[in-house]
């Protein structure tokens, strides 16, 4: 249970930023 929580929390911390980086790349590519 603990590992699941830590794993989930880690994803919550990291994934939005990673996804955001991809989205920003896509937006920039579309603009170019």
């Amino acid at each position: 249970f603990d590992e699941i929580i830590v794993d989930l929390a880690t994803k919550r911390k990291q994934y939005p930023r990673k996804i955001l980086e991809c989205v920003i790349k896509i937006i920039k590519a579309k603009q170019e």
Partner: protein
Amino acid sequence: STTISRLKLLDTTVDTFLQKLIAAGSYQRFTDCYKCFYQLQPEMTQRIYDKFMTQLQTSVREEISDIKAEGNLEAVLNALDTIAEEGKDRKELAWRPSGKPEEDLRSTLMPYFLQQRDALQRCVRKQEAENRQLAGAVLAGRRQVEELQLQGQAQWQAWQALHRGQKELVAVLRES
């Protein structure tokens, strides 16, 4: 009102825990439990008890230091102090993950999509303005072409008339 740092609170809490634990395990209590040995060797009992307490405290403090080092607690707790200090004026409950990642992610992404939309709107407006100017230039150019065509037309007709006149002249001259 004075906010104590989390790190200091941690150390104080552990100190208090140890003090109370040692107070609970008093020498009196120790000798009560080890009465037979105490009666035989009172000085030795005192030394063993002192050593026992010292060792227990040393081990506990070392453990806490290890945990601080492993979890980088010093920096992390200080960072949390800073974050809490920055947000201390906020009274209402802060947002917490909803458990629906796509929902939470929407708010993360929206500001960037809004920026993209604003940027696109600016581009469209700029291009529309530029096209309005170009359209004006095209209309002016069309008028210019029309003007030149009319001029050319007029010149052409004049020459045509001339040409007809020329034919008449020739006819006249030939008659004569």
